[in-house]
């Protein structure tokens, strides 16, 4: 199991989370501890074991293609921090992410 030190800047960037220097230090240390603790999973023999993504194995949960009533624009934008022309305003989007 990898016990590398977390590259906190890289992870914070993936998570789109601004961290203060202090937070970076604290988190790096705390997450180091947690990952150290989590390392015990490497003791378990998991060869041939299927990964479990759901608590119960259901299949084919499908809905008929019948449209229902949409939200009104007013309801849809009710909590919007900024709106114009029935759309959500966001600060300038810099080139395609």
């Amino acid at each position, binding site marked *: 199991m990898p016990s590398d030190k977390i590259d906190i800047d890289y992870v914070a960037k*993936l998570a*789109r989370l601004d961290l203060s220097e202090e937070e970076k230090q604290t988190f790096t240390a705390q997450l180091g501890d947690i990952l150290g603790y989590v390392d015990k999973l490497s003791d378990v023999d998991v060869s041939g074991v299927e990964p479990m*993504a*759901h608590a119960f194995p*259901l*299949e*084919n*949960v*499908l*809905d*008929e*293609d*019948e*449209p*229902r009533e*949409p*939200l*009104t*624009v007013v309801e*849809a*934008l009710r909590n919007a921090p900024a709106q*114009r*022309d*029935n*759309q*959500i*305003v*966001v*600060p*300038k*989007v810099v*080139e*395609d*992410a």
Partner: protein
Amino acid sequence: MEFKADIGLEVHVQLKTRSKMFTRAPYYYGAEPNTLTDPVVLALPGVLPVMNKEAVRKTVQLGLLCKCEIAERCKWDRKNYFYPDSPKNYQLSQFDQPICNGGEVEIEMLGASRNVMGEHRMVQLTRIHLEEDVGKLTHFANDSLVDYNRAGAPLCEIVTEPDMHNADEVFAFLTALRNNIVAAGLSDCDMEKGQMRCDANISVRPVGQEQLGTKVELKNMNTISGVRNAVAYEIKRQIHAVMSKEPITQQTRRWDPVTQVTSKMRDKEESHDYRYFPDPDLMPVAISAELKEELGKDLPELPFDRQRRYMAELDLPYTITSVLCPDRALAEFFEEALAATKGKGEPKAVANLIVNELLRELSSGEQEGSLPLAESKVTPAHIAELVVLTEEGVITKQIGKEVFIEMYQSGKMPSAIVEEKGLQAEQGDDGELEAIIREVAADPKHEKAIAQFKEGNKKAINSLIGPIMKATQGKADPRKIMELLAKVLG
């Protein structure tokens, strides 16, 4: 140095469903901003996705159409990335277990001329998976606006192998793919409405080199011709770069349809870390052999297969079939019309009437583009009746054209028009026609032509046919005129 280009495509096709991929908010093109949302579309706290059965069925059909291997079981994964058009900041997509694997699409390259069939070959697919669409951003000078109407619409992503080598092949592939999908009713594939979108991965390498060159991703192409132009430009640009010893770096470039050049958007060095993992809210889907069989039954004959059949069985020329067959509605219209003649109409005559007369009228209207076939007043029964009337000699070809215009405008049946206007060819009464011919032949202005005819120039009397026709109001059979004219002139 000679170069070879290798091109792979990622084509996104919006499936024709009534509701969205993972919720039952309605979806259609052209609605007012943010009127097609619900709490799931907006990713409000607490909502959950539920899969649209029809989207799964249509994706399986698309896979069958492309001869893919349909997975017995597939699952949905989250692709995590932040962007303002993506409400959850993850996209529900398929990572390692897509619905369809492999597959191929038959394409036709341009022939030596328009009348000659070009070379056909298969373009190999990597996979087809099902995912959800994102919303739409409109950019302004200082900010951007987001409309989430499109967010959550079902999208099939068709990924090809780097199996195309020039811009014409790419054009042929997209054309064939679109024709197949539209024929099967899976999507309308209108690129200008965003129902079909295409990114291209392009690299070049010296002929003889095994390894593919460094690939560049091309985006922002909004028409099939746009893709062709962009790919052609990009191949040239890359060859030029290699020749000038400029290294090609992995990057994403944008096509500018106005200036017709590609320009760099960003470097690919910082590759995306999407943190794919199985979506815990959605259950896997199993696709049984029975379901595959059921869905396969609903699929139409592919346009190229139909074309081969028309050429072989109906003896139709390539030119006509290449107009009829790519458009399923038109081809079915033709088949209905042919069937309605009950064997009394030649396939070629039926096809000609549709391809020449009907299509011309449909595109000659005042509004832009063509009137859809379904909105025309002319039905297959009209076409069949007109063909039979002409073929049985009830009316002349000349009159047939007049009848066509009339029925196109009024929707009346050809027989009714002929009856109403008394347009029947004058049959049997040779005496009247002969009198007219004698009268015309007596006109001094035809003296020279008659003289030439008598000297052996058979074509000389063609100039008399027009005036004779006119005098009979077009009802005379041209063959009859020739026959009697020869007799009169001795």
